[in-house]
């Protein structure tokens, strides 16, 4: 894969199949979402409540984490804490090894993608099988998800039909969606029945009751968390909500924002492992709480809003950049607008410093965000942090985009605009020599590579004004 965003974006833009796949998908999702929120007053009140519930939970996060842990332990769930993805991978591996598990069936989990868990397990001889249809397809293709809700949105029927023929025994080539779905059901039923453990994420963790709330349409999440004798869930520490009652407004926002559904087929609330006398359900439930930089994001009052995200994907569905370049172009687990603010904060501006610039600041993401995350403001903040870091607390990799020349140019610009004499001299000079500066000059080069360099007028605005008889500058 190409090294930086702009190179990958260039490749994606020149791939008509990819662009057609995304265009069709994004148009459909935007239309379906809009139909769900036709009543604007209701939408405004509902998202204000959703935003407040998440902000309220974040304001009390350490207390809620402790309350949740206490309740979950009392319910029989084992709670683990991981500072890094390496820690989380080690914990999951230890639990699996202690149970002699050789095969794990997975429900869809973005945190497990963040951990690159599958690769870690494979390296230790444990097979991880994705069971969400979209995740199963991209696992067959050896790819990463290109969307956080619909992981194989970049693929069309023909590509999927070929993958199935190549990978599933006795599978004839067919582009019939029902037939493809039935084939996956058959293969994955066998995997479910023989899995030693199930792995899932969680959409919400309820402090009041110590419950995990998972939403899905396929039933693979329920199977992963019910059929195998062991269930391991992985979740970011920001998933906490205070009360069970808080789940209701968030559920009224999440599926409608994500896919335009009134609700997902299944809302699965898990509060304990199998109790004595019950016939099914895992005998052990483990939850791994992952930090991986979230507590650092939390330390800044403005950036903290990033952690409200409920992973609906509406921001990417409405993004003019994402819908043209697709998810893989971002080169990170979380693509689109939320990825542009989350990834640089988790991985560091030194690793993902180009992402905050992959935006026109058009504000479409901010308008549709169900929890009112000020994505555009945070993008600008991260651009500033990369160039001129604020005193504290530092964003990881802050200052990595600093350029002495660029900084000097802006300082000069600032000085010129603050002083009438300097302004007069400066604009006059540019009207004379500005057009002699080549488009390929350093600093200008990147900007003019896709734009025509503007022409400086022969006379400054002040000169023109004086000629027209205005003299009171």
């Amino acid at each position, binding site marked *: 894969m190409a090294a930086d965003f702009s190179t990958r974006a260039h490749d994606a833009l020149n791939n008509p199949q990819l662009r057609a796949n995304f265009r069709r998908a994004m148009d459909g999702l935007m239309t379906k979402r809009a139909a769900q929120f036709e009543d604007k007053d209701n939408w405004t009140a509902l998202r204000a409540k959703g935003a407040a519930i998440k902000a309220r939970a974040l*304001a009390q996060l*350490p207390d809620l984490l402790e309350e949740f842990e206490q309740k979950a332990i009392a319910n029989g769930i084992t709670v683990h804490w991981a500072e890094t993805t390496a820690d989380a991978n080690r914990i999951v591996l230890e639990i699996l090894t202690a149970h002699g598990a050789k095969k794990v069936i997975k429900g869809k989990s973005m945190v497990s993608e963040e951990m690159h868990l599958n690769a870690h397990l494979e390296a230790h001889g444990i097979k991880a099988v994705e069971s969400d249809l979209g995740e199963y397809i991209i696992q067959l293709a050896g790819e990463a998800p290109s969307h956080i809700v619909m992981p194989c949105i970049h693929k069309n029927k023909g590509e999927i039909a070929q993958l199935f023929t190549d990978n599933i025994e006795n599978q004839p080539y067919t582009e019939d969606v029902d037939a493809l779905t039935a084939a996956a059901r058959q293969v994955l039923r066998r995997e479910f029945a023989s899995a030693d453990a199930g792995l899932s994420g969680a959409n919400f963790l309820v402090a009041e009751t110590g419950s995990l709330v998972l939403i899905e349409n396929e039933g693979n999440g329920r*199977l992963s968390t019910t*059929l195998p004798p062991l269930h391991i869930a992985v979740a970011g520490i920001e998933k906490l909500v205070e009360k069970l009652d808080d789940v209701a407004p968030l559920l009224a926002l999440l599926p409608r924002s994500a896919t335009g559904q009134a609700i997902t087929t299944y809302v699965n*609330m898990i509060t304990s492992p199998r109790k004595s006398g019950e*016939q*099914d359900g895992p005998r052990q439930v483990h939850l791994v709480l992952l930090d991986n930089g979230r507590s650092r994001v939390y330390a800044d*009052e403005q950036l903290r809003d990033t952690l409200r995200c409920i992973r609906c994907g509406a921001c990417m569905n409405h993004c003019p950049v994402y819908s043209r370049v697709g998810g893989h172009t971002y080169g990170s687990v979380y693509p689109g607008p939320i990825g542009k603010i989350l990834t640089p904060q988790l991985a560091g501006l030194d690793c993902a410093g180009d992402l905050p610039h992959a935006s026109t600041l058009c504000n479409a993401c901010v308008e549709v965000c169900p929890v009112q995350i000020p994505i555009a403001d945070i993008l600008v903040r991260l651009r500033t942090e990369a160039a001129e870091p604020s005193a504290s607390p530092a964003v990881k990799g802050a200052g990595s985009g600093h350029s002495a020349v660029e900084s000097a140019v802006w300082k000069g610009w600032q000085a010129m605009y603050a002083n009438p004499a300097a302004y007069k001299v400066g604009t006059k000079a540019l009207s004379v020599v500005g057009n002699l500066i080549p488009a390929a000059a350093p600093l200008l080069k990147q900007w003019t590579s896709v734009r025509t360099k503007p022409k400086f007028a022969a006379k400054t605005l002040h000169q023109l004004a004086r000629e027209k008889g205005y003299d009171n500058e």
Partner: protein
Amino acid sequence: MSEARANILARLRAAPQVQPPERPYWQAPSFNDRLDRFRMMIEAVHGEVHVVTEQTWRPHLRKILAEKNVARVLAAPHLGIDWDDVVAYDAPVEDFKDQLVSGIDACVTTTRGAIAETGSLVVVPDVDEPRLASLLPPIHVALLKADDIADNLAQIIEAQGWAAAMPTNLLLISGPSKTADIEQTLAYGVHGPKELIVLVLQ
């Protein structure tokens, strides 16, 4: 592990404190005819609704299942379905798995109520009706008392006092299993039931 816990909590506690905002007012909708709304919503996602009575539901069910060529039905004994081909889920899943995964055509379960707004059934699995009963067979038949349909989720959480006594597993089920992962084309029965039949007892 406890070191990670202490470190994470310490970092969170060291961060600037902000006053938790109050929850602003927002009320989920209510409906004049809850059954009508429930029916409209669940039918829109491929669910099937039959309005029956306490006296008629068993023969009615038998007729529906016969039309669908159902041979083996999973149902708890307390439901009083005494056909020859009815089996109970009365053994641990470890002993019952093979039959459950591929040997049952339909399952009948009760519900704890329903939600009109979204067309959702509230299913609380228990000793007699375990968790996989409503998931593995290709057809799920759910019995719902018309009086148990609430307006919205918030209302039923409060009315039934969920927060004080959460069961091992509590489910909202809104239609049969589905996916749109392939080109946003809807397909039913990807992992769970292909059909969801609701018998509303009036």
